[in-house]
């Protein structure tokens, strides 16, 4: 064992230099050519940074498309999910309450049309997306609130829908921040 200690220390040190210094520096170098030099892509409006493209933020007012419920209140410095089990009675009561609230704010929507992502919390608490259906069920409410025709909103949703990857793989989705930005720009 003794004779192994010195070689082990030296080899560990050299590996440290290669794997924990050189390797990250190479990636950091490559990152300089990536969007916003690997520092997260932000979205600006009127020269003010109002969000990061990939990171969800809170929208719960009736004049905007809602984003998904978040147990960390969209705190982007402390991600987290609810970690509630599917049979937990408190959790099921929370979901029921979210459904009821949604129905109060969206009286024209039938319960069976509420997609589950609007009443369940995301894994990260920062999910930037909802499904196209999740946006469509909110059209009546926003149209009334903003005095815009339904057709205009449906068209807006269509424009902002992101197809599955290569049109074939995964889900269709809408970035809520971008959709709401476009919504504000409608007027």
């Amino acid at each position, binding site marked *: 064992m003794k004779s192994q200690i010195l070689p082990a220390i030296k080899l560990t040190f050299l590996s440290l230099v290669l794997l924990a210094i050189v390797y990250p520096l190479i990636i950091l170098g490559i990152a300089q050519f990536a969007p916003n030099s690997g520092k997260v892509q932000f979205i600006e409006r009127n020269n*003010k940074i109002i969000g990061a493209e990939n990171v969800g933020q809170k929208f719960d007012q009736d004049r905007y498309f809602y984003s998904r419920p978040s147990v960390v209140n969209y705190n982007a410095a402390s991600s987290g999910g609810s*970690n509630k089990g599917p049979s937990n009675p408190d959790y099921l009561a929370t979901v029921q309450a979210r459904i009821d609230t949604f129905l109060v704010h969206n009286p024209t929507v039938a319960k069976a049309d509420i997609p589950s992502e609007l009443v369940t919390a995301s894994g990260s608490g920062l999910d930037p997306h909802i499904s196209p259906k*999740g946006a469509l069920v909110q059209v009546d409410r926003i149209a009334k609130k903003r005095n815009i025709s339904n057709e205009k909103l449906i068209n807006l949703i269509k424009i902002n829908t992101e197809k599955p990857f290569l049109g074939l793989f*995964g889900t269709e989705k809408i970035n809520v921040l971008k959709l709401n930005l476009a919504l504000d720009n409608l007027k």
Partner: protein
Amino acid sequence: MNTEILGIILMFTLTVLLAIPLGRYIAKVYSGESTFLDPIFNPLEKHFFRISGINIRQEMTWKQHLIALLTINFLWFFWAMFILMNQGWLPWNPDKNPSMSADLAFNTAISFVANTNLQHYSGETGMSYLGQIVCLTFFQFISAGAGMAICVVVFNAMKERTSEKLGNFYNYFLKSCTRILLPLSLIVATIIVFNGTPMNIEGKASFISMQAGDTVQLSRGPAAAMVAIKQLGTNGGGFFGVNSAHPLENPNYLTNIVENVSIILIPIAMVFALGFYLKRKRLSLMIFGVMTLGFLLFLLPSVYLEMKGNTAISSMGISQQLGSMEGKEVRFGSAASAYWGITTTVTSNGSVNAMHDSFTPLTGMFALLGMMVNAFYGGVGVGFLNFYIFIIIAVFISGLMVGRTPEFMGKKIEAREMKIATIIALLHPLLILAGTALSSYVFVVHPNIGWLNNPSFHGFSEMLYEYTSSAANNGSGFEGLGDNTLWWNITCGIIMILSRFLPIIGPVAIAGILANKKYIPESAGTLKTDTSTFGLMVFAVIMILAALSFFPALTLGPISEFFTIQ
């Protein structure tokens, strides 16, 4: 066809297609044949070995291999402890995160040395950038490299010869890091950094939120480098608290494909590498077949159940068009989340792109089963070692059944090897069940201890999952468990260290003893081990052992929960 299903078919196909050439390449690396990376790494490795005073031509016996492995791991543990307990004042800590307490550092150090990456801290608030890189990222390379090196020792022992010389540990270790893990990490990190995963050295950013106009702090940092190796080395320790569910750690469907393929790529490639290395392709196909059968058995019902949704929510009368969405992200959907959940648990990866605590009950059970078996692909290197134990047991049992001397690869299996194999096979359930039983007892005596985030059967599952994950060196969790306490830090730490090293020592000892025995050439009386019949035998051994050990505990947890919400 449904685009979510297509997505997971693509991921699995892509993995297998990449794993075959990679397996061939890995075999070349370990047998010392020339590869296209020689011009870079030959001189580099030569210098490394010269400075370290290591002669790679000096072959080691199985005992010397184990001594080398344990010595270097022992040193690594102290490096990790030092960084974790001092990162608060050490440089490169822009977010001013604190040093870890002793018990948390103990747990985290073992967790990363043991290739587990169980995380009782949260990346954004619990680690400095220095700690993330020179401690955690570093360990994600070297713990994986050590596992792969020890796997090659067992490959060597399976050669058709009688010898106690099984190659040089340091040689295999360094080459695993430089020639396999490093190049692949560079590729993966480059892809994800161009898709939005941050790689920067500044601290938190802030923005003014659009609706409320308040300031939101946004954590970022040198994530891409770490995310690549955490996926490839079956480590799983994420940069951010919620791992690859975080929109910066895993920004879109493409990065999800790349990261998920990375989870099982090397574990599968190692199986093919065995075939190329020993020129026993049929054997490696048999192993791949058994592993894939087990994997699909866990995967298919999980995908179905997650896409179907939570029955308790269905009865509220809303639409679950995307499936069960609690704890999941819209950009992945429930199929890709279930696929990730099973791939990460059958291998010992443990990264997540959805919260396993919120999976529907039986998907949670299949994730548990993946870790309880821990040999359907398994961790890089060590997955094969676990499988090797099951092969030995299957050879012995089928030898008895057909009345032939139990032989594997021309070596007779006798009482001593069987004893070791049995002890190792039973150690895993013992650690899991004893840990869970003890914790359940403590919980019953002190019901206000505040560990559990969920009542009833699911609460039991949370404790069972934590120990299963520790014992499988997996690192995922039912994260509702309040696990950053003295009790969980210490007990999980002990279980992780035992279940990392004993299941390495056992198979290496068996292989070493077998390698030293007389080689008996195959004859008409030899039990063929590379046939589908024998494959089914191994599969039966695995499933029967798992069922006998774990069925009662699973009944108390996920199975009971399943029936309560029907």
